[in-house]
């Protein structure tokens, strides 16, 4: 770590380091853009893992979590504070890390931080005419300010960018999202194939897509705001309601983050159970993804085949957790209930039938010439773009980017089990789809190794009655079904968090919709979306 410190001091002598779980560098706003460039190009921090808007009272700012793929996935935190609270601005890094494009729009939406040089500084979740920035501590939540508006947004084609003039004042430059005479088709918010309440505005030339504009926030629930008023055990259930197809992994991540802050040792039995549940969840998610991809291509029958097997996983969840969705199973220190007596039998049955069923899927769907024509070579996403847009999970691995958090930062018992990280170099929808199908096999492999080796013991550790985290900030990542899921907690030592941020993989996935869909046909937009496999509640936290 000291080695890294020296290197950072070399590129930025004014760096102030703060001790924490990982190296934290405080950078002054005026130097930030140059430092960011050096961090990326000279020190190899090529992935922007998380961008967390912050309100520290005296000023607003942003926490950046940077990962370097060339340094064994070392993570550093960078703290940048805006110079003033009113009219706060920070230089945009969206030209360095493309993933920051939507992340900065979210931070602007929630905190009102203007990102200088960002090409498209619109609100991301809220309406254009929303008054105030909800995650600021001085936000006025009076319903009279923001009534339920019955009229449409009038200026949805207008955007702007901010720049600094010679006196260091922020200047607004208007821009347009679409040209006047473009043929813009709405895909969503109510549409059979957006997998939820999502809206894409696609500008078409005949049947060819020219540009896709993502309009999000239709089901935004303000989870991050809600958590600030709740105690730690109370915020757990939100994670099951974000990416409901990664409920166990997400909740696992939040619990791990809190356990890390508390310094809590989780019993081994709970660790194994958590790992198994994560993998079952992954199987269930990938089966749903298989079904939806088939469905979006019009192969409705294959969809039912996927759901037939998914039902078995849900039955396993129901027996142990008491619910088929929103399981609420992980708790701080372990899991809430012991395994059902049938658990091992059911899991073994699932592992037994899966290979045969996967073969059936390939016969019915993946081997079909029409399906191949629709998926192969469609939605090209190069490895460089996948890294730059931080596309993790099966979609990133379909672009041959080795980004599996279970291998890079092993947690629970993942370092004790054998499994392969599936990498395909197709860079297209078919590769992403096939990675998922092969990951089902790997998940079965993990389950097979663990199912007979569940140790006896406690299912959760002793935790204090009132959970108070020490002051500090923590960032924890896990491999959810759709990519790397991160939880950021900042605490002031109180029993409720000062700030919680969820870094969801699907948020990054919609970020590449424009890149992957442009130049393909409108029918491909649907299949690209299906193969990227985003879940809307995960975007609209």
């Amino acid at each position, binding site marked *: 770590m000291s080695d890294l410190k020296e290197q950072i001091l070399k590129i930025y002598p004014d760096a102030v380091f703060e001790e924490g779980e990982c190296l934290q560098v405080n950078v002054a706003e005026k130097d930030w853009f140059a430092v960011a460039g050096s961090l990326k190009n000279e020190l190899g921090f090529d992935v922007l893992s998380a961008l967390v808007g912050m309100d520290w009272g005296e000023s607003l700012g942003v926490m950046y979590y940077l990962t370097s793929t060339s340094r064994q996935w070392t993570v550093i935190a960078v703290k940048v504070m805006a110079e003033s609270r009113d009219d706060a601005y920070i230089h945009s890094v969206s030209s360095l890390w493309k993933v920051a494009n939507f992340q900065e729009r979210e931070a602007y939406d929630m905190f009102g931080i203007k990102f200088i040089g960002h090409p498209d500084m619109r609100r991301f979740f809220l309406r254009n005419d929303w008054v105030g920035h909800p995650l600021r501590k001085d936000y006025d939540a009076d319903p009279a300010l923001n009534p339920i508006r019955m009229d449409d947004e009038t200026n949805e084609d207008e955007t702007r960018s901010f720049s600094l003039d010679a006196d260091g004042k922020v200047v607004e430059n208007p821009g347009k999202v679409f040209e006047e005479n473009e*043929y813009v*088709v*709405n895909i969503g918010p109510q*549409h*059979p*194939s957006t997998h939820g309440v999502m809206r894409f505005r696609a500008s078409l030339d005949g*049947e060819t897509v020219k540009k896709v504009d993502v309009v999000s926030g239709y089901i935004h629930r303000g989870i991050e705001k809600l958590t600030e008023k709740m105690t730690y055990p109370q915020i757990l259930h939100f994670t099951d309601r974000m990416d409901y197809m990664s409920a166990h992994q997400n909740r696992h991540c939040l619990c791990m983050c809190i356990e890390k802050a508390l310094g809590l040792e989780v019993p081994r039995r709970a660790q194994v159970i958590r790992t198994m549940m994560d993998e079952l969840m992954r199987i269930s998610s990938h089966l749903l993804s298989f079904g939806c991809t*088939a*469905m*979006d*291509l*019009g*192969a*409705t*029958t294959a969809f*039912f*085949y996927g759901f*037939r097997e998914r039902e078995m996983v849900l039955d396993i969840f129901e027996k142990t957790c008491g619910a088929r969705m929103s399981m609420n199973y992980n708790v701080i220190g372990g899991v809430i209930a012991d395994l059902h007596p049938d658990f091992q039998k059911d899991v073994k049955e699932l592992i037994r039938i899966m290979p045969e069923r996967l073969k059936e899927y390939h016969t*019915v*769907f993946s081997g*079909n010439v*029409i*399906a191949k*024509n*629709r998926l192969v070579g469609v939605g090209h996403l190069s490895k460089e773009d996948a890294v730059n847009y931080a596309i993790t999970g099966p979609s990133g691995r379909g672009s041959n980017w080795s980004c599996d958090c279970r291998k890079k930062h092993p947690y629970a018992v993942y370092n004790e089990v054998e499994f392969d990280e599936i990498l395909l170099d197709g860079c297209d929808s078919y590769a992403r789809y096939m990675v998922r199908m092969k990951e089902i096999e790997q998940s079965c492999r993990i389950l097979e190794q663990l199912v007979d080796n569940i140790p006896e013991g406690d299912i959760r550790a002793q935790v204090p009655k009132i959970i108070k985290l020490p002051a500090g900030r923590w960032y924890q990542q896990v491999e959810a079904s759709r990519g790397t899921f991160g939880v950021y907690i900042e605490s002031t030592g109180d029993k409720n968090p000062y700030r919680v941020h969820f870094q969801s993989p699907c948020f990054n996935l919609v970020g590449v919709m424009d890149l992957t869909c442009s130049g393909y*046909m*409108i*029918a*491909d*937009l*649907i299949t690209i979306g299906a193969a990227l496999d985003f879940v809307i509640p995960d975007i609209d936290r």
Partner: protein
Amino acid sequence: MFDFGKWTSAFNDLLLGTGMADWLAVLIECVIIAVLILGVYTVLALFYILYERKLCAWFQCRLGPMRVGRWGLLQVFADMFKILIKELISLKGTDRFLFKLAPYLIITSSVVMLACLPWGNGLQIIDWNIGIFFVLAVSSVGVLGILLAGWSSNNKYTLIGAMRSGAQMVSYEISLGLAIMTIVVMAGTMDISKLVLEQADGWFIFKGHIPAIIAFLVYVIAATAETNRGPFDLPEAEHELTAGYHTEYSGIHFGFFYLAEYLNLFIVSGIASLMFLGGWMPLHVPGWDGFNMVMNWIPSPVWFLLKAFFISFVIIWFKWTFPRVRIDQMLAFEWKYLMPFSLANLLLMTVCVALGWHF
């Protein structure tokens, strides 16, 4: 085989026997036939809806409708009444006249085609020397209805759906026509009743061997595309265009599109059975007199319907198995492969006929 023509001519004699004028008798007959056609149309549509729903349920490890009536048999009637009493919503910015005209154009073209089918021995409604040509001509009117529906709705989805539909139907009509032409070359007639009678000593698919079998395959593919069914259901493409050209329709106007879709499925199956599988002709094997006798006892309309249902089954099977193709792939398939192939096949058939190589 029992000749149903006896009944119809007996009825005609009965009317004339009352001393009424010729034109009046014809008028009364026409009205009765029209009512019968519409009745058959509705019953067949209801049957097809249930048929497809049950078949697709079985493909998908489901039971399908089970609640209304035994095995859900009455479900379609419930659906029909629901659709009849629904409000006809008219939207702002639509072309009112064309918007309302479109469903009637579609339903008219499919009713007329239905009337051309050879229902049984002597049960031919429209029968003249250009019969099959007339069917092809009428089928093209349907595409006009789809185009108008898509255009007049003033909706981007419907417009894309209609344009796709137009491109698709115009393209695949060529292969469809060429496949039918292949058989016409062999039969030497376009008259529907003569086409059936020609097959008394063997169905065309057997008589015309290789070129006829190729024409049959081409026909089934082109017919699937003509009826806008999967894998060629791009004009509706539920997952891209919500419901394609009929997105904005409600109530019975939507019902017309829905009925026409199912009836077109029956009609293309009926034409396939007419052109390749002998229409209402029973299956005869030369030399097996006992077998042929038994086959003759089965009434001719049953033969016709069973053959049509069988081909519909195949087309439904396509739909519930294959993913949807993309517009460029679909057009490339037609213009680059299917059409040249069927042209070559037509040539092959002509050579076969000229040299007498068919049975």
